[in-house]
């Protein structure tokens, strides 16, 4: 039989010479979503994300520092715990690495190409602030390997290195913000700058404010330099007009203030007994603070009450005359946000202060106090109170009467550390919970400093009886996808959140 071999088909078709082909295939740019943008379009949402990171986590940290507490008893955060397997209290991580994250690099890249050194400086200032405020809750962070292309497992680095990075980046930011060449202009920066409207000198003050935090948070260390802190404060904010206020349009829940009624984020939280005590005179020789009615809310029976963290709110029933109102000043039975005007910074349109003049004055007061310069400490202390009274819209006469009352030491010699820290606590209440937590951890929750402050008797089970000292890195980031790196410093241990951070150690 004759072998029959059939080649039934053989075809090789080259449709294009390679050059033409490349051009034909060059359609991989998204026509509906940009893959790059100019800096003025990136800066506004970045400012909003700074607030988001602070506010989301402040709600939990506010429970640690007893700014407010849950209406339900045995809430884990009230008891200085956390929620396992949850991203609750993981927002700063999201903010630092993603929400702000590489957008900073995009601004630096875009603005360097356009010689917009003001934008470059602003981007670095924001990242420096983000490192500082994030490491202050987390301690160890992903530092030199962060944002590295093609890397999926990240080593953590110690907090002293993050502190160094804040300093290095701040110096770069100051250099860039000082430049007037190229396309630097108030109008140009003002297009994206919702906070300082393009004024570089205010951004420079913000950088110094952040450096003041950086230098001051290590107050327990032997190399702490109060003079440096004082120098930084003096170069930073000069009045409330310099406050880093991020505005809110307040038209819906996406552009409204986190603490406003429309977002409804504070519905299950109530003012604590501790903050009520600071303002109703309990902590300050019986002098009622004029900020009391402006900041806190009064029950129907005209008594200011607060909850004890962990105990829940025993008054939380309909028509109870003792019922503690919502932070917006209305009864919890009011559920329609449109009927709630809000108060203090609990309104939809209220700006969120990331850093205030009063905070910086209290930093200066403490630094000078530690240094031994009581006169300077006393001066800054009174400026701090005055500035916050103005911030809270206290009438000048009421303010001056309070400053002259027994609530405030009347000369420098009578000033105590406790006075400074408790007034600072009041001035940071709500928006500054993270900075308050830094202070409380530096002073190890001392009831000599924070008079009347009581750590909950029954702490969260995983605490092993120890108070909280840090937030865990975001669960759906590090605990799920970078577990092994956490092991190096005990990040997977159940009591990891009680490990003291480097900054507060001697």
């Amino acid at each position, binding site marked *: 039989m004759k072998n029959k071999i059939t080649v*039934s088909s053989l*075809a090789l078709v080259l449709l294009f010479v390679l050059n033409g*082909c490349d051009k034909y295939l060059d359609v991989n740019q998204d026509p509906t979503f940009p893959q790059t943008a100019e800096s003025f379009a990136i800066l506004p949402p970045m400012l909003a994300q700074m607030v988001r990171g602070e506010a989301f986590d402040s709600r939990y940290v506010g429970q640690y520092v007893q700014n407010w507490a849950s209406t339900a008893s045995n809430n884990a955060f009230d008891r200085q715990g956390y929620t396992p397997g949850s991203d609750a209290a993981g927002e700063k991580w999201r903010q630092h690495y993603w929400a702000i994250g*590489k957008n900073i690099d995009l601004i630096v890249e875009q603005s360097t190409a356009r010689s917009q050194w003001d934008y470059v400086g602003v981007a670095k200032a924001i990242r420096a602030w983000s490192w500082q405020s994030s490491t202050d809750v987390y301690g160890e962070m*992903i530092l030199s390997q962060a944002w590295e292309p093609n890397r999926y497992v990240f080593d953590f680095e110690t907090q002293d290195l993050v502190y160094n990075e804040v300093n290095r980046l701040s110096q770069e930011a100051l250099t860039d913000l000082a430049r007037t060449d190229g396309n630097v202009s108030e109008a140009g920066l003002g297009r994206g700058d919702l906070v300082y409207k393009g004024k570089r000198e205010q951004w420079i003050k913000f950088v110094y404010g952040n450096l003041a935090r950086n230098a001051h948070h290590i107050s327990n260390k032997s190399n702490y330099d109060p003079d440096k802190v004082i120098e930084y404060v003096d170069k930073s904010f000069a009045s409330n007009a310099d406050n880093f206020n991020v505005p809110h349009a307040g038209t819906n829940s996406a552009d409204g203030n986190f603490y406003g009624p429309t977002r409804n984020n504070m519905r299950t939280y109530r003012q604590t007994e501790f903050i009520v005590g600071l303002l109703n005179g309990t902590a300050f020789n019986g002098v009622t603070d004029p900020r009391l009615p402006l900041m806190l809310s009064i029950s129907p029976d005209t008594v200011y009450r607060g909850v004890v963290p962990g105990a829940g709110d025993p008054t939380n029933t309909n028509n109870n005359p003792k019922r503690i109102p919502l932070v917006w000043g209305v009864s919890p039975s009011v559920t329609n946000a449109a009927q709630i005007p809000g108060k203090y910074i609990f309104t939809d349109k209220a700006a969120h202060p990331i850093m205030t003049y009063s905070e910086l004055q209290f930093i200066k007061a403490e630094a000078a106090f530690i240094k031994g310069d009581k006169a300077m400490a006393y001066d800054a202390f009174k400026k701090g109170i005055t500035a916050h009274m103005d911030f809270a819209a206290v009438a000048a006469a009421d303010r001056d009467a309070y400053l002259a009352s027994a609530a405030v030491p009347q000369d420098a010699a009578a000033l105590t550390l406790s006075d400074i820290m408790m007034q600072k606590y009041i001035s940071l209440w709500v928006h500054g919970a993270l900075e308050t937590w830094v202070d409380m951890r530096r002073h190890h929750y001392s009831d000599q400093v924070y008079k009347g402050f009581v750590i909950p008797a029954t702490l969260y089970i995983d605490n092993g009886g120890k108070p909280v000292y840090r937030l865990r890195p975001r669960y759906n980031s590090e605990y799920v996808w*970078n577990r092994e790196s956490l092991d190096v410093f005990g990040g997977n241990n159940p009591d990891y959140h009680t490990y003291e951070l480097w900054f507060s150690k001697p």
Partner: protein
Amino acid sequence: MNTDYGEKVYLPDFNSINNTDPATQRDRSTLTRTRLVGAFAKAEINFQEWLIFNLTGRNDWSSTLPVENRSYFYPSAGMTLNFTDIPALKGKFGPLNFGKIRASFAQVGNPAPAYKIRARLVSQTSTGGGFLFDFFGDNPSLKPENVQSIELGTELAFFNDRVTLDFAWYSKSIKDQIVTQRLSYGTGFIFGLLNGGELNTKGIEIQLGLTPVKRSDFRWSINANFTKYDTKVLNLPAEVSEYYDSDTWAYDNVRASAFAPADVLAARFNSPTNLFYDDLNSRGAGSATAIGGWSYLRNSKGDILIDPNTGFPLRNANFLPIGDRNPDFVIGLINEFRLFNQVNISFLLDIRKGGDIFNGNEMFLYRNGLSTRTLDRETPIVFKGVVKDGMEESATPTQNTKEIIPIADETYYTTVIQPEDFVERDINWVRLRDVTISYDLPMRWLGSQKVVKYASVFVNGTDLFLSTNYTGADPYVSTTSPATGGAGGFGMDFGKISLPRTFSAGLSVTF
């Protein structure tokens, strides 16, 4: 066509509705454009119809890949031997009247989705609007994914096709699979699109046809399909432990997942305390069809740890394998009878052995006090386990004795109970999928008209009978539709109802 409206254009040179203030927008548009160019060559060598070779080669150029990786080649080769047709051997196989052996090897390359080389920016609704990077990271070094498969098979027919057998064995490997993977935010993004993941599926398929009776007035034929396969995860991308399909994450902390092998998980999760327990978690480890979910904390001996304050078990809030959905095997069995050249009766039985199911419906009902298993809610119970009091790893851990009354603490239902309790293991079933009886109407009834050539009446019933050890409504469930792709959501039972029992009767007419 899109009709878009928006105000306040941010970027001057970018014409898209997404470049306007979201508060002013009335629509949103998405347009995806990809181009793929292919060159294909094929050769077939046919040797006297009993030995056939096929060879193909293909090169693709894709617009969605980086320039240096955009061109990729993939070949295939196949061989068929009809050995009963070899002239020298013809007629020498006894009852075997037909026999064929086939073997094939094929590679397929797949390109990436569009626009993934560079991350995109999305418009923001916060005060002042603007743009920020989206969740999805960029990957400028993306490669095409590569699928390799080998198949060996044989087709045999005996006794003039009264017995037929088709057997196939296959192995399919996926390398450089392009996956959207959640990662550490240290990447700067929430998801990465990356090459990674190495999966291997091995399986066999057997099809057996029998005609035991073949007479002029009675014919009985049987057709049986046997399917068995197993997908092993050799590697997951970016050194992660789990890959999950978010569409299957329908209820509580349970989802259809693929997990790294057991040794990898044990190394990752057993430090500093044991979170990976061989007894529980090795079941779905290394499986592409695992159930990933939360479970209870245990000591290294496997005793559940109890909170001394509450008396409740402590949870293991890590997604670890708590079951494997893959069945041991599946059989489809068809019996057909034809009587008196007029009556046809057929049965289709569907048989499955093994495979775990997450009974989310029961968990939901239990948590809401609607399950009969919650009737004892007022009866004090003591969780079996050891107290986490520091002695839990010692030789004599403290046995839990704390009594709790479920109804007295709502958290028992809302947070204490973990999905581990609602994974039902080794679910088998026999299901009468389809029964049809039809009767061909005698031609004489049709009379001498010339319009209708054939007519029959039939009754049909589907899913009339189900026997299973599953406690839920129906083990044949999936949380996803086939459109989701991937391994799918079979074995994830939440919010699904059982297949309906249907009856139909009718008349079938041929004109």
